[in-house]
């Protein structure tokens, strides 16, 4: 009469399906993908942490308004290795297709006649880090560039978002505030551009960014556009640059200033030094913090702490 008591697991009698039926607990058939290569994805913070566990690295955040050239700086630093203009040696990238997809609008293969950079979308999966490994004099360094849209920094500037809510900002080894040289070239837009940069620096400072472990810089982008605009525009920037530099130095006495022209496009611009090599050298400067500890070998999710989401200890 009775088949089992409470101490036993009930049997599976009721599960018995006919021979021709698919068992109820059959897992759904996995897509026969074979071994996959990387797609054009950025890395998540935990994935980036794994890389930082293998060799020295820098988390780089370009903080700037929309179209200020954040993505362009990243992909051009990569592209310069391809075109032989880099002083470092390309050592690999775990986001190679992602770098390629982002630089694609500036390539002839895009069939465009003007170089573009596509708007960076907000990634709900948090895949917003691009990786570039470079080698210099035999030592390797992993650069991890935050690839976030300008909206994020607009929100910080407008006090809609606290810097502390953006883990990458608090974890950055290198934080550069970008000012768009194209906006500085016009009297219509330059005051807003400078004002926005100043406000961004102030909001970051209010939010405890940069941290002591973060090295900061003020980076003029599209310097060719500014240069092409003439001496008055340049003089304007030189005054504002000093002001902004002072504001940054209040937080980081070692804050640097760079002028870059990642892509020289403006006619009439006399750019002898596009500033990219200097910028790269700054990125490679040893940070004043301890390196990340080795990545845990365990594959348990709990062990794979997203170390990017917390600041490193200051030496």
């Amino acid at each position, binding site marked *: 009469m009775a088949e089992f008591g409470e101490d036993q697991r*009930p049997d599976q009698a009721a599960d018995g399906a006919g021979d021709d039926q698919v068992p109820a607990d059959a897992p759904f058939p996995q897509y026969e993908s074979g071994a996959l290569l990387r797609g054009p994805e950025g890395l998540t913070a935990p994935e980036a942490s794994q890389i930082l566990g293998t060799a020295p690295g820098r988390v780089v955040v370009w903080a700037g308004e929309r179209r200020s050239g954040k993505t362009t700086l990243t992909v051009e630093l990569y592209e310069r290795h391809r075109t032989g203009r880099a002083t470092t040696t390309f050592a690999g990238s775990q986001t190679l297709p992602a770098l390629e997809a982002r630089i694609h609008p500036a390539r002839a293969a895009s069939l465009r006649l003007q170089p573009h950079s596509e708007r960076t979308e907000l990634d709900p*999966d948090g*895949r917003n880090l691009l990786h570039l490994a470079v080698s210099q004099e035999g030592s390797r360094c992993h650069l991890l560039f935050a690839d976030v849209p300008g909206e994020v920094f607009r929100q910080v500037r407008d006090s809609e978002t606290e810097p502390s809510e953006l883990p990458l900002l608090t974890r950055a080894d290198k934080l550069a505030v970008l000012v768009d040289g194209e906006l500085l070239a016009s009297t219509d837009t330059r005051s807003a551009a400078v004002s926005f940069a100043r406000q961004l620096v102030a909001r970051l400072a209010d939010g405890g960014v940069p941290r002591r472990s973060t090295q900061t810089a003020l980076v003029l982008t599209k310097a060719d556009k500014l240069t092409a605009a003439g001496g008055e525009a340049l003089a304007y920037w030189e005054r504002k640059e000093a002001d902004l530099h002072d504001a940054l130095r209040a937080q980081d006495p070692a804050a640097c200033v760079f002028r870059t022209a990642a892509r020289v496009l403006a006619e009439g611009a006399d750019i002898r030094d596009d500033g990219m090599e200097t910028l790269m050298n700054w990125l490679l400067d040893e940070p004043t913090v301890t390196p990340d500890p080795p990545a845990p070998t365990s594959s348990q999710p709990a062990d794979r702490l997203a170390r990017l989401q917390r600041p490193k200890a200051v030496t």
Partner: protein
Amino acid sequence: MRQNDGVRVKVDQLLFGYRDGHELLASSMEIEPRVRPALLPHADARFEDDAPHYLVGTPIPEVQRYLLARIWPAPELPRPGAVWSHGLLLDRASLGFVDPLALEQLFRRPSTESIGESMAAYSRPLEVPDSRVAVPGLPEPLMWGLCWTAYSSTKLPTFVLWGNLPEAETALLTLWRQQPAAARARLAFRTRGRARTGASPYDVQVAPALRGRSGSSDMRILDARRLARSEVPEWVHLLARGAEEPSSDFSHYFRRFNTAALRSDTPSVLAQLWLLLEEPRSPGEVASFVGARFPKPAMMRPLKVALFGDYERESDLWRARDLDRIIAVLRSGPLAFDFQQLELPRRIDRLWEGEARHEMLEVFDDRQALGTSAAALVFDRALASMGPVDLAQRTADWALLSAAAERRPDLFAHAAFWRALDPPESSRIVGLAVAALGEDQLVEALLAVGVDWLVLAAGLLRPTMLAEAIARVAPTDLDSWERAFSGLDADLVAELGRPGQQLSPAVMLLLAASSGMEVVRVLPIASWLPSARLARNRSDLVARAGATTLLARALGSKSKPAKQVMIECFGVVHKALDEVDVPKRAWKELEPLLPDHNSRDRPGRLRKALVARMGEEAWTLDELTRTLEPAGPQAARIVKLVGKKNPLRRGLENALEKVADELVAPLRR
């Protein structure tokens, strides 16, 4: 499912587009700047294929709303990669009764030409059409794929590959519609141009292709484009059909019980259970299925109550009898089922009272096959409901008897119990019964059954209690008395010796009849007088034997009480000697006290002994009359033993005359 039939529902809306970045352009409700970052990633996309639009559905805890958004590429905007997205914000109440497919009709893509007019349109709440939207025959493999992945318990992100994303959007909304309101509020889904591996905030995603992996290879991908009917478990078919037929019985059932979020076994188990109920499978099989899947009492309580609760209230899911439900639950045990919540005690009692009594006895008898708790419950309720005959038929079950003695003493008080007992079993049971009932009640019960039961109880009752009981029910049954007190005389005598111990005349007479002089001598002769009186008018064996012994005792004494005993006993003994005889043992005690040892005339010798005694003291007429009255006709011969001048002669004659008068008086009347 409540749909918005006849109910006017308004939902808030949002418009995102490119203005100094991807920003909120218009909204019908105040969106705090601080919560916008929570909304933005879900209202943004990179278009990597030729799909006309993508769909996103996700809870936004920061605004306590659910966002359902459609995203379009916006190549007309100056920045490459710009998109439009139109979002609907649903509160929890709306989620409960709007038709998700009706929401799909609300999406409007803005145009740059009329953006100014559009802004105003996006700044007012939208009214949801109040009609239920028919599902446009979705491709079966797509729905199978969605249901199979959505209702799988994998913790990995899942993707369904499907080429036609607009179709996939409708299918996702159909899947979303299938959820109860609470689950709707938690389900996050999205369409994309390319499937991605690695962690994602979305439960279900659909993309037309997989092109590479991310930094993580974690993924579960189902290619619905190549899914064949024969590959798909029946429960997936059922859920897929159910999603498209919200009014079907299954859909009602599914919405009623599926309170779980996705990524749990619950939906698939509910579908499998439905298939079992349809087959149908036995309640036992259903209970074991449910118990195995929801192995704690608190899991899926409403479902368990609907399936195994009181048949009179819970009969809409299936028609299984209450008895079968209860047995099924008992066999599954309390790890999965809450016996109290299912009201098993009350329902079992009801079965005991009704036609299922016999089945309940079977369950009780097989309770060893149940788990400990179920067996205890069955035992408990059986004990409460069992009748005396049921108990008597289970005397081998000592645990039952012991428990019955404690909790159901009434069963032992039933004559039916004792009558149904197998006598060889009974003596040990009497012991329990004594403990259960106390001696008084037990004797009452046994009295109703018969003296044999009293005899059986002999060793277990106090001798005086037993003696009184036998004397009451069988005062003339010397054989039963002697069987009852075989070897226990001393105990009874000891009882007699106790101060204040009172025994009834009937007991005293039986004692005198069975035990003889040895016992009679223990007490003063006066104490025997009531029993002597009791024997006076009787002729049964007890009376004859008892009276003979008492007479012997009286003859040996000169006391006044002895005379009284003699008065009472002489008649019985004389008549017995004359007509029947007295028991041999009693005669042996009397005979030595009688004169004329060589005479065979036993009545004559007794008469002589009486006369001799009369000569020693004065006897009144009444005393003589009382003495001779029951002695029979031959008693008249006593006169000849006394000389005519002896005053006693006259007394005897008068007494005999009076006796004769009294004997004929009734005739005269």
